[in-house]
């Protein structure tokens, strides 16, 4: 530092000190920071430092799962699940296309709603996260070590898979169910061609339990399988959550449209004062399965899984499913009357309280599991519907929190005896003392909150600290960007008696539910590279000496490597119009965060992004003779711009020989 700099430093220092003194609040008002500055400190994560929580937000109609850091609200990653993803080629590469196969063919999109972290003994364990596809019913499992989708199973006999994915206490099962009942043809496993007005007679719902293989020694990625489906009356099954502790063995699902309307539901499905929570005793169902009390229905469904040693997805196709009828398996299910058109249903960390979001009722219904068990024992039944006893409301209800808020939807828990409820119409989150049945705090949110999320907030061990409001309507919260807006999330501090608003951040594609866990649970287990020596891809090349081009009739396989900063081969000749070319590119780097991209001129597929040690394949059918460049799309080194190659395509029947090379004339 020279003399001039020192003087300058002194001057700036003096100005700085002055500015700070002038900015100080008067002492008598208290030195504790309030408002924006205090909130900013709570969410500030300094450059280079890590967030305290990983948060996983559903990507809604974007079909993906987003990874955010909390409290900063920084977007860390988008994981493609049910939607193709141009960023890395998911769903476009030959290896990943199978992930999106269904009995209806290749489906490149879906609507994801409810992520759920795997649990052991009711606590988040950091292994996997599940998420549902609502439109073409499917359930996916994402591995938290790679943060990539590893498995997708299709749900037959279902439509509008909304009460999904909710898991049991040890991840024994993942749930799925029908928001849209359908006329299931039990002879064919397809939907019947019937008049829609025959809804009440013909349409049925199903609740599906997917068994999860939790064996740590089982290395296969095909860990899910459909255990059974419960055939239930044709209502709209909306959301769910499973029991824990004393209520382990049960899962709870809300239903609306017990009126069984098939048109103008907003009026016709809002007639009854109470609809039902369906309580399913899955341990009883297991017993009925053992006793043979089930039917085997034909049902075609795809089961896709990605092998990260072979770097490739595979599909199995199921052809039948076990279906249990409540009339034949006594005690498998009960209905709990619940006001009114309830949406969410959530079980508190003790496993005793089952709290619904009675969206058309201002009173928040809290049911008691122990009362429910007593009501079953004492046969306090109002009536029986298709083999499902309806228990008396008074016999199961702990309390109705009076005039809690308008439009309560969902509940999360802090583990300290409070439930936090999102209220869509009154745009607020309320905090209620469960035992006392009393609202103790409320905070406005902007605007129209749907789900809310506390890290671990639906487990036996919530981590508390924050609640995130997942708002449906954004309007004026950010700089205007035209008619279409991203959704808005808000981070709220719940460590004090009063909730405190900390931060707004944008989310993509209307996230519905979200989950979060402490970063320490997984951050050191996250995979950084795929080991080249473990790569079992049939078209992998692990060294440049193995690179080659092979013709089999009019199919050409290019065995290519990528490393900073060249492809091998980077000149190819002898491709002809009418050929189908497969570029199998292995990234032979073994360093973290050095992917290479691959894209070729005129290809209808987007680029593929190949991770270190991975092999991916893009199919290319050139239509005209000429020379076509290809290049690395991911800035990989100072000589990234040099990472390019050419393919010469000649007319059909031409005698240009097949040649390839690097650093030489062909």
């Amino acid at each position: 530092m020279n003399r001039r700099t020192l003087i300058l430093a002194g001057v700036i220092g003096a100005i700085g000190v002055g500015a700070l003194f002038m900015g100080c609040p008067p002492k008598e008002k208290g030195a504790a920071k309030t408002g924006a500055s205090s909130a900013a400190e709570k969410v500030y994560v300094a450059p280079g430092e890590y967030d305290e929580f990983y948060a996983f937000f559903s990507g809604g109609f974007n079909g993906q799962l987003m990874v955010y850091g909390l409290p900063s609200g920084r977007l860390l990653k988008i994981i493609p699940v049910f939607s193709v993803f141009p960023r890395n080629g998911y769903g476009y590469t030959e290896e990943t296309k199978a992930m999106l196969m269904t009995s209806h063919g290749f489906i490149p999109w879906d609507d994801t709603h409810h992520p759920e972290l795997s649990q052991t003994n009711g606590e988040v364990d950091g292994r996997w996260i599940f998420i549902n596809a609502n439109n073409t019913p499917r359930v996916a499992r994402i591995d938290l070590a790679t943060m990539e989708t590893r498995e997708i199973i299709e749900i037959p006999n279902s439509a509008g898979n909304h009460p999904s994915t909710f898991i049991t206490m040890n991840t024994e099962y993942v749930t799925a169910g029908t928001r849209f009942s359908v006329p299931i043809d039990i002879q064919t496993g397809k939907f019947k061609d019937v008049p829609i007005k025959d809804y009440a007679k013909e349409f049925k719902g199903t609740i599906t339990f997917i068994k999860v293989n939790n064996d740590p020694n089982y290395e296969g990625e095909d860990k899910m399988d459909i255990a059974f489906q419960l055939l239930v009356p044709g209502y709209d099954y909306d959301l769910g959550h499973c029991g824990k502790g004393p209520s382990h063995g049960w899962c709870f699902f809300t239903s609306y449209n017990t009126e069984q309307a098939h048109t103008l539901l907003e009026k016709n499905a809002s007639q009854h004062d109470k609809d039902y929570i369906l309580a399913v005793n899955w341990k009883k169902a297991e017993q009925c399965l053992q006793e043979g009390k089930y039917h085997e229905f034909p049902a075609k469904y795809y089961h896709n899984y990605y092998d990260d040693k072979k770097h490739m997805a595979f599909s199995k196709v199921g052809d039948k499913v076990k279906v249990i009828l409540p009339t034949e398996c006594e005690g498998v299910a009960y209905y709990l009357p619940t006001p009114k058109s309830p949406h969410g249903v959530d079980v508190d960390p003790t496993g005793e309280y089952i709290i619904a979001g009675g969206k058309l009722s201002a009173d928040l219904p809290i049911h008691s599991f122990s009362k429910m068990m007593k009501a079953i024992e004492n046969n306090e039944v109002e009536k029986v519907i298709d083999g499902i006893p309806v228990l008396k409301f008074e016999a199961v209800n702990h309390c109705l929190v009076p005039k809690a808020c308008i439009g309560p939807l969902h509940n999360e828990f802090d583990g300290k005896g409070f439930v936090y409820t999102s209220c869509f119409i009154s745009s607020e989150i309320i905090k209620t003392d469960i035992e006392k049945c009393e609202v103790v705090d409320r905070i406005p949110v902007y605007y129209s909150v749907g789900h809310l999320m506390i890290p671990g907030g639906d487990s036996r061990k919530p981590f508390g600290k924050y609640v995130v409001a997942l708002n449906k309507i954004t309007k004026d919260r950010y700089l205007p960007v035209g008619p279409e807006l991203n959704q808005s999330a808000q981070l709220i501090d719940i460590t004090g008696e009063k909730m405190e608003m900390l931060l707004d951040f944008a989310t993509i594609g209307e996230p519905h539910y979200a989950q979060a866990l402490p970063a320490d649970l997984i951050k050191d287990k996250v995979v950084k590279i795929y080991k080249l020596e473990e790569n079992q891809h049939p078209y992998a090349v692990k060294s440049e000496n193995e690179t080659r081009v092979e013709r089999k009739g009019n199919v050409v396989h290019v065995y290519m490597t990528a490393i900073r900063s060249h492809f091998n081969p980077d000149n190819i000749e002898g491709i002809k119009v009418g050929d189908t070319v497969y570029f199998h590119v292995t990234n032979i780097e073994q360093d973290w965060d050095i992917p290479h991209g691959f894209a070729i001129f005129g290809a209808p597929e987007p680029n593929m992004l190949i991770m270190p040690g991975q092999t991916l394949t893009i199919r290319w059918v050139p239509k005209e003779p000429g020379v076509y460049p290809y290049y690395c799309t991911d800035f990989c080194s100072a000589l990234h711009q040099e990472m390019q190659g050419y393919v010469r395509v000649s007319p059909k029947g031409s005698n240009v020989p097949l040649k390839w090379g690097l650093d030489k004339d062909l």
Partner: protein
Amino acid sequence: MVMKRLPMYLLPILLVVGCGGGKKSESSSNTTEQKAQQTATVEQTQATAQSEQVSEFGVGPIQEPLNLPETIDEALAKKGQELFDKKGCTACHELDKKKVGPPLRGVTDQRPPEWIMNMIMNPDEMILKDPVAQKLLEEYGVPMTNQNVSKDEARAILEFLRKAAKEKKN
């Protein structure tokens, strides 16, 4: 450089004289102050590291002399040759021809074996700190990639290179 470094020196001063009094405010200033000081220390370390003398072994896990015998361990050299291919080295290196990186036959006569192992295992840091690695980068333009080579593997590759050097002499 001068402007960029200025705030680093000022930050601790500014924060120390910031609003005091309240307990909460005080403790949070302290934390920020500590962080600022830490950052400043890191910056200084980085700045001095450039000029700091790097040992002839370079920067990396090998800092003790290997004391290799004159004779070649043939089995180890064979393993090294396989690894030279399997670990992706051949993407940039040949023995007798300049490919992307330098030809490697005879490298063991030019550089200490410890330096070669460090360059194989720790190229990112070598490029930042070792003057010879920096000179090579200037000459070839492409930084050596980190291929996650273990110590045992690097030792085997070194043996392969030692053998290659001997073959040339013979």
